[in-house]
């Protein structure tokens, strides 16, 4: 197994289009690292530079101790899984998994050993002699994973491997890939645009936007302490709510609504010169409460809102409403019935709220 080190990596295409810049990251041995971000943020380009499918314009890439910028992809000891889990249609599962090894003239008994091992890991033993046509979508995706496992590579690179699966299967395969990683302990770099996938699978995640790293951290770190408004809105579903207002005394004021800010936060904002200035308050949907007990103890973060839409999701209800003319989404417990059109009291849990600088969009720490 091996870690990876990306030092000052930059990718510039012809005609000066820069896709990735100033990318510095150490990926630890056995880590499951997820690159996440919207379309065009440079996450797939980064993965393909690691794979050797794209040239690196500037910077150094190390796999283990070895600088591999000029090493051919086939010699980098990596295995790749892509979005399309299509297989060779004429070949059965065994041959699909064995094909890349046959191309490399590996001995038959070694190929058999590796394919049998991958089939056992992926519970594909009883399907080895079936053609792809006779497999379900999930089984085909497992074969695609098997095609990577047989390489016995130092590093797995996965580019949106679940995005062509339906929602139910995606959840199932998410767990399968995690189990696989726990079992094989192979360093894995996984690319996705789906923040749920990133949050649930990553040892650490890297949030990217427009070619730059926005934040690196464990899912919990990134969720609880987002470095900027982009990360705060990208990670979490429904996204964090942003309220634009001013800090006046101990209150965050938006229109005629005043919200009490905890003393420690007020001090931090004051120390950094935000007193009387416009700031952005970030509150996650689950930190907006309607439970009577919470409302009783939070009289100064409470406000009244008319619910425009209430979506019952089962254990919770997603509420869409406005306060001081600004849209927000709340996620509340479905034990307390809320219906569309109803007016009710809600309160922010300000101990979990964040403040952002309106001009730089950075979190005020």
């Amino acid at each position, binding site marked *: 197994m091996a870690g990876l080190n990306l030092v000052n990596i930059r990718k510039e*295409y*012809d*005609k000066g289009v820069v896709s990735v810049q100033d990318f510095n990251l150490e990926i630890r041995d056995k880590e499951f690292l997820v690159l996440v971000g*919207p*379309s*065009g943020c440079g996450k797939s380009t980064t993965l*393909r530079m690691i*794979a*050797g*499918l*794209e040239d690196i314009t500037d910077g150094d890439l190390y796999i283990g101790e070895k600088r591999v910028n000029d090493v*051919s*992809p*086939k010699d*980098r000891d990596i*295995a*790749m*899984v*892509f*979005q*399309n*889990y*299509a*297989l*060779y*249609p*004429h*070949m059965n599962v065994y041959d699909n998994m064995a*094909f*890349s090894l046959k*191309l490399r003239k590996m001995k038959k008994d070694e190929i058999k050993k590796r394919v049998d091992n991958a089939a056992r890991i992926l519970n594909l033993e009883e399907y080895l002699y079936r053609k792809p*046509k006779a497999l379900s979508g999930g089984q085909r995706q497992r074969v*695609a994973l098997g*095609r*990577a496992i047989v390489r016995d590579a130092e590093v797995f690179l996965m580019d949106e491997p679940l995005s062509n699966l339906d929602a139910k299967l995606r959840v199932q395969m998410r767990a399968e890939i995690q189990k696989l990683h726990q079992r094989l302990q192979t360093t894995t770099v996984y690319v996705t645009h789906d923040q749920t996938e990133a949050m649930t699978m990553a040892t650490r995640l890297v949030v990217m936007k427009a070619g730059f790293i926005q934040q690196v951290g464990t899912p919990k770190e990134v969720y609880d302490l987002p470095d900027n408004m982009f990360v705060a809105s*990208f990670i979490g579903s429904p996204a964090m709510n942003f309220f634009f207002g001013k800090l006046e005394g101990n209150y965050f004021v938006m229109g005629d609504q005043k919200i009490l800010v905890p003393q420690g936060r007020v001090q931090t904002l004051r120390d950094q010169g935000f007193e009387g200035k416009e700031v952005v308050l970030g509150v996650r949907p689950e930190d907006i409460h309607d439970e009577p007990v919470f409302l009783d103890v939070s009289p100064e973060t409470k406000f009244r809102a008319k619910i425009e839409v209430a979506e019952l999701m089962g254990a919770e209800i997603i509420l869409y409403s406005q306060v001081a003319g600004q849209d927000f989404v709340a996620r509340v417990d479905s034990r307390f019935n809320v219906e569309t059109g109803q007016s009710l009291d809600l309160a922010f849990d300000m101990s979990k709220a964040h403040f952002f600088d309106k001009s730089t969009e950075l979190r005020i720490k």
Partner: protein
Amino acid sequence: MIEQLRKIYPSLLVHTNENGNLDTSYKWYKTAANAIIGIQKAELADKDQALLAAFLVPYDIKFPPMTEDEQRWKKAIDQAEGPADSAFPVLTPYRFIYFSMNKNQITPVFFHEALQELFEKPVPILWENESEGIIIEEGSLSEDYPSYEQMIDILMSDLYVKITFFVGPYQKGFDSIRAYYHSVIRDAKKVFAYSDKTVITYIDAVPYLLIDQADPALRQALGKNVLQEFIDDEDTLKMLETFVQSNLNISETAKELHLHRNSLQYRLDRFFEKTGIDVRQFHQAMPVYLAMLAKK
């Protein structure tokens, strides 16, 4: 002659399509009768190799030997004028698919072997050089077989190589096959300069090809007159390009760009206010798209 040589070199093999790839532990030659023969390298001293090269043509095993079908297609394309041999048995429409791979990363032999496994029946492949060529597809692809996008992913994971495909338009008959062959290669090279997609069909390529024909003055004027003050606003141009590529669908574009629908509406309204162009209308979106291509 082959039998005489076999007496001297017992390892001599005659290559047929049935015995698959050419073994790299053999030295391969082409005879005057176009047979491909191989002799184990261990059996050949330098002197033997020099002697054999005097009356046989050393066969480059980077390229797979041409099948009969490939030879027929090549002959048809190489004919300067007029229709191909009337014995050429193609009844269905056909199309040429240009492919390109990173240089020096895999041999054509590997690519050929892997690619053939993705089609219903063997497909003729004509190589331009070690990293480019044309696949000849007769009839249409069956739904049970991978799309060209899927083929790229399969081949990338097996061969570790970046591949692009340009899918030419369907043709019937052979009257202009030579011109068609060269136009597919020429068009492919043009369109991949404009787009970073890995699979581009001829229909997708039409706007690129049109813009490529425009003279520099017209291209400059298009950018200036259509995009106006947004000509260097990369964020707006990215938004407009995504909007066109998402079939002018607000929700899809917003999702793709990770923007709120309202923010996108606002930005489209702003573009309309400043330029007078409502890109929600197809006939107004098209010139904007062409102007963006002209700028590339």
